[in-house]
């Protein structure tokens, strides 16, 4: 592999990892704080991508699509949380898996009914449709933009989680939600905000990815499964773990595709199995409870 090809794979892998982090961070927080295993999280990514396609096709502007799409995702998150997820807080994992699996089926049907089974392309905004030279290779500006926006978002999340009162409550909730409630904090509101934030982040990841991957049925599921792998590797409830897990998974996938074509998808799971054998609760997961 030439140096420029290696560099291109590296930046592509990192960009993919950053997108995956946007999805996985919501998943890990919703599980860590709300205690709900949300299989519909991948559907939010898919809905985001389809919204980007739909609105940008109508208005001709992906910027406008993102501007309108993110609040729409927040609204969808609020609806899903209030109508379905909030009824699951006291239930076992099986009910959570099944109800959110039902939501996956529902969102898939919705997508089929509204947008059909075709693959749709989304064009990048004119201002960012050039490429950046990278040695002998070229790097599309949209990929660069995506990477930098993700980095900014990740830094912003870090600030919110570590430096604000809200972030403090989130961290407290991730380690012991009952105690937070006992201290008189409105947990329902905290849960709602957190769920909507996770939904919006997953949707935004879908919108950013839409011009890169095209928009197609089932796109949410592959991201969902990979996000699960990320969360398992990083440890449930750990944003830092999700960040490093996402980069690890994305780089394993990107370089696997070049070095071992045909085994790339399997390689990601091999990495996960190795991590689990070594640390059954993930790299940065909490210590086992009461055993």
């Amino acid at each position: 592999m030439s140096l420029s090809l290696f560099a291109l794979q590296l930046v592509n892998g990192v960009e993919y990892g950053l997108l995956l982090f946007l999805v996985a961070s919501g998943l890990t927080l919703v599980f860590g704080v709300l205690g709900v295993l949300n299989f519909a999280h991948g559907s939010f990514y898919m809905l985001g991508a389809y919204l980007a396609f739909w609105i940008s096709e109508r208005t001709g502007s992906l910027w406008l699509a993102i501007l309108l799409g993110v609040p729409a995702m927040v609204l969808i998150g609020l609806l899903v949380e209030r109508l379905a997820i909030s009824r699951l807080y006291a239930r076992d994992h099986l009910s959570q898996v099944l109800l959110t699996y039902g939501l996956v089926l529902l969102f898939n049907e919705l997508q089929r009914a509204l947008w059909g089974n075709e693959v749709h392309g989304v064009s990048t905004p004119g201002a960012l449709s050039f490429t950046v030279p990278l040695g002998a290779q070229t790097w599309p500006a949209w990929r660069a933009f995506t990477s930098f926006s993700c980095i900014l978002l990740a830094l912003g999340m870090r600030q919110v989680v570590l430096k604000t009162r809200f972030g403090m409550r989130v961290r407290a909730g991730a380690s012991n939600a009952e105690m937070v409630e006992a201290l008189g904090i409105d947990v329902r509101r905290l849960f709602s905000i957190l769920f909507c934030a996770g939904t919006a982040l997953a949707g935004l990841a879908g919108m950013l990815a839409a011009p890169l991957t095209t928009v197609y049925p089932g796109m949410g599921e592959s991201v969902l499964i990979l996000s699960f792998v990320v969360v398992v590797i990083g440890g449930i409830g750990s944003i830092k773990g999700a960040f490093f897990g996402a980069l690890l998974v994305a780089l394993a996938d990107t370089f696997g595709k070049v070095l071992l074509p045909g085994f790339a998808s399997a390689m990601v799971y091999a990495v996960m199995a190795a991590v689990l054998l070594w640390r059954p609760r993930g790299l940065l997961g909490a210590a086992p409870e009461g055993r």
Partner: protein
Amino acid sequence: MRRRLLLLAGAAALAAVAFSGDRFWLQFLGKAMIGCILAIGLDLLVGFTGLVSLAHSAFFGLAAYALAGLTNGLGLTSPLATLPLCLGAAAAAALIIGWLSLRATGVYFIMVTLAFTQMLYYFFNDAPSLGGSDGLYVQARPVDSRLAAYLAIWASLIAVYLLLSQMLRAPYGRVLEGIRGNEQRMRSLGFPTRRYKLVAFVIAGATAGLAGYLDATLYGFVTPAQLGWRQSGLILVTVLLGGKGTLYGPAFGALLLAFIEHYGEQVTEHWNALIAALVIAVVLFLPRGLAGLLQGRPRG
């Protein structure tokens, strides 16, 4: 007693269909009974051991692929040769995946079984020599006639049901229920709980393999989609719909779901939305499934 009579009547009715010789019903109920075997096997894990596994479809698909490989590649056609080999393949895979997955507990276990299922899905889906996403045809099925396949499925369903219900009544089954109730206590009583769970996982994997073998026998082909996580999700749905922890409930749930699927397809193109609504409704309003309606009061 009443339950046993109902089950006997159901089994007799399913056997009677064989004599009607109607092609559609043989195929349709054959498929539905395969769903029953899958659901009963998964109930051993979900309902009795408290393990929510999403790897059930993986063992189903592996056995079906093993049959296609043995028949197409090695020319083995006798069920006496292929059945033990395919079940063995499914059980061996369950042993490896179970050993790895059971290191994790709770929600990690769910996600790890999910990941292994998808790993196998991509393995078969991405391999052109294994038919890719189109899957493989079984060039010579273990039994030729649809009637013979139907009777084999019927006999397998009865056998799996009797075997599992006997096993659950034996001390081994009591230990499994103990593990579901309080694993730490069982461990402190001296039971090697992980080994018990692994045995249950392998038995469930073998029953899923049996279902996959029968499915490939009935239809003559296997596709990677059959072993993806969505199938596992659907089997979980049947278990919960029927009522976990009862064995007969999940079997009933599988029959019901087959009918809903068949008639739903005729009514609307978007019948998946119907299934979705049903799943959500059952989880929210009927957590003990349809069997819960029969039983009246909570068990245990």
